[in-house]
């Protein structure tokens, strides 16, 4: 810092900027506290929660959806929406299965083809939207059924199971899935916070017209965000196929909704412009903790669904209330 800078800035500025930083920390801290509180409740109510393995079980269960939700976070921050990622997930699972079983391709090549397939599906979502002008909701709703159909066509009547050990390594146990989850969050987090394109997601989601007038390549950026969404869905699919040791076109059903739920519970705005991937991971942990906790308490899946539904609405309600009005 040179002297000119010192002069232009009154002393209180340092304190204020730390306040702004603290604001960010406080926001993510709030969500984290909510997670701890929920965990504590189940800890008190249910014996198995006192075993540390339960924590790892929850993280492992959260990991696949959390990886997918990292992509959803980017799309939602940019003011977009992708309802088709669950179906992209199914397509990629089947494609990877076919590559490994029918074509007996090397594991790395099957993975690369799987990732490329997912990215291409996302890319297509973005391109169709940008060039047709049809709203994201409709385009990706179409994608949801269309990709599902493709997955069924590709996977019908095939037994895609019993994969090579080197592939199974990716999803088995808890070390790999959890590591891939954190690695995904780290990479997407750095992308969003540190890069030009990542920052443009916040700008476009905040005010698309201002971004356009400022010279941001809105259409091109959007296509890239959807491509990232497809890529992360593919990553999640590969981990799941590896974990289950079979691939089926029925997988991935409703995953897009769970991902959106986790993003929103974490505190990323459904209306675009704010949020982060760290919050999404915590949001997904909250959701899984509740699901696992209720299951341990003997509560059925139907009631679990009701609980998650109520929490989603509550999360959006809090998001809208905390938002400064302008």
């Amino acid at each position: 810092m040179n002297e000119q800078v010192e002069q232009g800035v009154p002393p209180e500025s340092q304190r204020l900027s730390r306040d702004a930083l603290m604001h960010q920390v406080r926001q993510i801290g709030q969500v984290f506290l909510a997670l701890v509180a929920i965990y504590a409740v189940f800890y008190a109510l249910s014996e198995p929660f006192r075993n540390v393995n339960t924590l790892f079980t929850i993280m492992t269960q959260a990991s696949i959806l959390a990886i997918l939700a990292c992509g959803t976070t980017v799309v939602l921050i940019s003011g977009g929406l992708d309802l088709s990622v669950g179906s992209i997930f199914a397509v990629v699972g089947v494609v990877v299965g076919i590559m490994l079983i029918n074509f007996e391709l090397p594991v790395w090549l099957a993975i690369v083809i799987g990732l490329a397939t997912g990215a291409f599906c996302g890319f297509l979502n973005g391109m169709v939207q940008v060039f047709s002008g049809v709203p994201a909701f409709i385009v990706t709703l179409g994608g949801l059924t269309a990709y599902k159909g493709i997955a069924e066509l590709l996977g019908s009547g095939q037994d895609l199971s019993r994969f090579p050990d080197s592939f199974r390594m990716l999803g088995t146990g808890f070390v790999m899935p959890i590591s891939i989850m954190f690695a995904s969050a780290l990479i997407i987090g750095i992308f969003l916070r540190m890069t030009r394109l990542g920052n443009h997601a916040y700008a476009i989601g905040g005010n698309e017209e201002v971004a356009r007038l400022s010279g941001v390549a809105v259409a091109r950026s959007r296509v890239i965000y959807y491509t990232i969404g497809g890529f992360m869905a593919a990553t999640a699919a590969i981990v799941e196929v590896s974990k289950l040791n079979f691939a089926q076109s029925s997988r991935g059903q409703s995953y897009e909704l769970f991902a959106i739920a986790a993003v929103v519970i974490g505190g990323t705005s459904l209306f675009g412009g704010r949020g982060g991937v760290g919050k999404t991971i915590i949001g997904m942990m909250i959701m899984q903790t509740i699901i696992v906790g209720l299951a341990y308490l003997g509560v059925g899946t139907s009631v679990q669904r009701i609980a998650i539904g109520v929490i989603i609405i509550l999360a959006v309600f809090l998001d809208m209330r905390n938002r400064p009005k302008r």
Partner: protein
Amino acid sequence: MSHDVPVCKIMMNNARSEPGHVFEALGVTKRFGGVVAVDNVDLRLKTGEVLAVVGDNGAGKSTLIKAITGALSRDEGQLYFDGQAVQIDSPTAAKSAGIETVYQDLALVNELTVTKNIFLGREIVRDDFLGRVFGFLDFRRMDNEVRALFGKLNIRITDIYREAEAFSGGQRQAVALSKTVMFGKRVAILDEPTAALGVRESQMAMDLVTSLKDHGLSVIMITHNMQHVLHYCDRVMVLRLGRHIATRNVSEVDGDSLVALITGANEPQAAQA
């Protein structure tokens, strides 16, 4: 309203670039469906002047600005820089030609910090591998440049890490105006820079506008404030219902005659102008 338009068009289309002007937009027309929002307007900006653009609500001021800065596509109109015809068909093209614009209600993204707003679309990337290949941003450098700029312009915004929505209308306007100083090379265009500001904040904003001139920019300023026109501007251009009614030296007009031009009180005379 429309009976004399064809005549007008033939007359105005012969408008030619004149020397002494940094920027000219001639024969600009913009239609929204059947509505002619801007009708064959000639705008001429002299080098180093502050040109006011006035007119009632809906007169087409904002539309004119958008149509000549690439924010909206024009139906007709040719732009000149220093007498040379230029092609400006996108906001980016306008910026690289040296025009900085603060659009009405579209100046800042609420969710972005002050620094990110100022550098939006023109971020500085790091001068290394990460910057060049992945577009990693050089936040430290951008923050320092913003601090230096605010120091130079006497803008008392201390927390440049805070989101734009946390600031008052006057502070937001100051941020938006400082952007034109940072990047404006030739021309600054400001759409109602004092709209919704209090007396003191208006004063602050107008001081900034004056300093734009000191920084070597020629300024086009839309305003509804006749006081500001008379105090701070060199010439004034009047629009009414999308038509260019008159352009006058500020020294030749007063508040009453401007209002008459804006409202069309001296209709027969004004229509010939």
